[in-house]
Structure formats: C-alpha cells, structure tokens
C-alpha cells in the first residue's frame, strides 16, 4: 500500500511539472538534425533504387 501511495504521489508531482507550459525536457531535435534526416532518407531512397539497378 505504501508503494502504491508513493507511486501516485510521484506521478502527480511529475505530471504537474510536465503540464506546466514552461516545462522543457531538454533541447529537441534542431534544424541540422532535420536536414540530416531528410538528406539521409533521400540517400537511402536513391541507394535502394541504385541497388536494384546495378
């Protein structure tokens, strides 16, 4: 019972913090990451086509 109570209290505390509009968990993916994802995805698609054609 003590564990469950502690669990609920911890959840309530954390969710309160995380629902705060000013909450940040840390830096998200940035513009460079976005560009890298797109570029790598394009390379993969080209690579898939090339792999079939060779």
């Amino acid at each position, binding site marked *: 019972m003590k564990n469950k109570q502690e669990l609920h209290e911890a959840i*309530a505390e954390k969710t309160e913090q995380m*629902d705060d509009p000013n909450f940040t968990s*840390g*830096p998200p*993916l940035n513009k460079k990451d976005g560009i890298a994802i797109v570029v*790598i995805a394009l390379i993969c698609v080209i*690579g898939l086509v090339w792999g*079939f054609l060779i």
Partner: protein
Amino acid sequence: MSKQTKKRQIHSEVYYGMVPLGKKDKIYGFWDIFLITGGWAIATWAYVQGGQIATMIGLEEAVTNTFFGMTVAGLFLCLCVLITTRYGIDIWMYQKALFGYFGLIIFAVIILASQLGYDVINAEVYASSLMKVFAEFGITIPEYLTPYIATTCVIFGAWIALRGPIAVRTATRIMVPCLMALGVFIIFTVFRNFSLQELLNVEPLYEAEYGSGLANYMVVLEWNIAFIFAWFASIGVLSRLVKTERTAYWGHVGGFSIVMASFTVIGVLTALAMLLATGVESVDPTDWLLELGGPVFGLMAILFVAVANVTTVAVSLYGISISTKVLKPELSFSKVVIFWSGWIVLLLFWGGIWDYYSVFLALVGATSGSAVALIVVDFFFVRRQKISMKDLYQVDGKKAYRYTGGFNIVAIISFLAGVAGYLWVYEPIEAVPRNDIFLYTTATGFSMIVSGLVYLLLSMIKPLNDYLRKDKKRE
C-alpha cells in the same frame, strides 16, 4: 537474493516504468544507448532474416536493400523515440492518448503477443543448436522433439527473467559479447573459404519466385521494413532514460537500424556461402556454422548461439512483462512472465512461426507500420507535440483520453484502414504482391500512408478534432 529484494527491484522497475522521468532521472548518453540498442539488435533473429533474404536476391542487392531499407525505416520509426524521451515515458503509456485507456490494452495485447514470435525463432534456433551438438557426438535426436527442446530455452529464459533486473542485466552482459564474437567468427570463416567475387556470383535459389527482379527486391524490402518496425513495441523502455532527444534519436537509429542491418548482412553472407559450399539453402545459422566452421569451431559457435538465445529470450520476456505491468500494475509479475512464456511455448508447438516466417513478418508489418504512422501523425500533427500528462495518467480525475468508453474510434478506424490497405496490396499467406502499388511502396509503406492519411484527414473535421483534442483546453 531474497524474495523481498527481488520484489522490490521489480516494483522499482515498474515504479520507474510508470513514473515519468525528469531530467535528473536520466542516465544514458549517446554511446550508452547506441551500444545497448545495438546489443539488443544482434540476436540470432538477424541471421535468420539474412538467411531468408539470401534465398531471394543476390549479395549486392541484399546489401543495399538491407542497409538503405532498414535505415530509412529506422529514421521514421525512431521519431516515436522523441515522445518517450521528452516525457520520460514508455510508448505504451503515450498510446493511451492515441487509442484510449481501454483501446490501448487490447491493442497492446495483440502487438506484444505477436512480437513474441521473434522469441519463438530464437528458441527454435537454440533447439537446432543443441540437436546439432548432440549429432556431432553421434546422438541423433528425432525432429519431433524440437519443440520440447526449444521449450527449455523459454524455461531458462523465464527463470532468468523471474529473478529480476540484476539477473537480466548480467545475462545481457553475457549475450552481447557472445553474439559479437559470433559475428566476427562468421565473417572470418566465410572469407576464409570464399572470395567476395565468388559470393557476388551466387544466384539465389528463388530469384524467379515473383516473376521479376523488382518484385523480389520489393518483397525483401517489405521484410526488412517489417523487421525494423517490430522494434516499435520496445520503444521507450530505453529511450525514456536518455538525456536528450537528439542522442536518443540518433542512438536508436544507429543501434536498431544500422547495427541490425550489419548483422543481417552477415546472415546473408553466410547463407550464400552455405549455398556455394553445399548447394543447400538454409535460413538456420546453425547449419552454416558447422559447415563453414568445421567440427571444433563450429561446435563452439553453436554453443554461443544456444547461450545467447536463452539470454535474448530472458531480456525479451522481462521487457515485455514489465511493459504489461506498466499497463496494469496490479498484475503479478511472476504470473505475467509465466503467461507470456506459455504463449511462446504454444507458438513453438504450433510450429507456424518458423514455417510461415513471411506471414509472421506480414502480421508485424501490417500492425506495427499502421501504429507507428498513427503515433507520428497524432503527436506531431494532430496534437502539435503537446499532450496532457495529467490526462494520460488520469490524475485528479482527468480523463481527456477516454473518448468513447475508453476507445478512440477515429484511431481505430484509421488503424483498420491501414491494415486493409496492407492486405489490398499484399497477400500475406502466400507472400505475394497483389498489385503494382506494392512495387513502389511495399505493403507496410502503403499501410502507413493509408492509416496516417485517414487519421490526419479525419482529424481535420471539426467535430472529430474536438473529439480527439479534449486535452486542448489544458494547454
């Protein structure tokens, strides 16, 4: 270790599994998560996948299809990691917002049950390993005993899982070096026996299977994509512990895609070498190890495989049981482990997973692909990256994700549309494309486009948007 200590450890894991983790709780950097996910990825399922690929396409195509296909699938899949890292939660927790409080439970049971098919593969390879070891000593074990021997892998794995997280972590420390050593050993024996040119010249056994090179290539791509999307069920277990979204994302892409692709290609190499050496096709890595490694090293490698498979099953059972407990904390951990172990044993005796491996992959592709697309659309487009944690956890009676009796009808319709799309372009029993769309999108790709688009379009209808966004007023 005392029963109370084990119980405390498991409660602690569930505790940490349920409680959203803040910045101070996070412990993993890039190399931590890259090595852990990479270590998890290199189980013998990668070799079986490689062996399957080698029956269909040649080495060059296999390498490009596997590396590029798995990487692009991983780039998309790992977008889900951003959610779990940001909020410090498991992906199953997030899916309460997507499927509703009860919808999630039904969906989770379906997905988790199907994921355990991979442990059936591991257990069967374990059985094959042991039978070959005995055969080398002149003891022939009849084939019909395979499921019984495979069951011992599940029993040993469950035994480790039941002993708690310390035992599981110790098992991981044995498993990963074993599997890495095995990979190195395999590469060494393949290139000791054959040149690269010889391997490139091998014609796959079923290259005429689908009537065209493109169809073969896309069927293999379908398998590779489904293989990566199977990780969806395990997202969050690790990523919630990573310090930043960037490191979580790229670490997972590296481990779950690139490392996995590397070991799958090792499986391709070895299966082709086996074909070259004997003219016999096999997706069972233990066949290759004896043939290529010789009696002494081959036997050692096979024992490595057996040990590694027990520990992989242990890690998998433990992780899935913890996830099940996170969804329903009141369940007894021991009973959950035994339940899922029993399910694996049932599948073993059915024998269908190995015999219908491509159908199994189809099930994974159809369900996981649609689910991942829905998660990405839901979080990034419908909710604009904002969820209500209090509603997710139903704190203070908040239940914005209750929808209709606990089920998000819009998400369920979209999910089923994705599955229908999958079946429209691909026949999973015979593993045959049904129409030309498959040749450009694969079935998993098409199901993702359908489910994602249907959900996005439905969310744009105002009454449906209000239905989905009851958490909006909390922002």
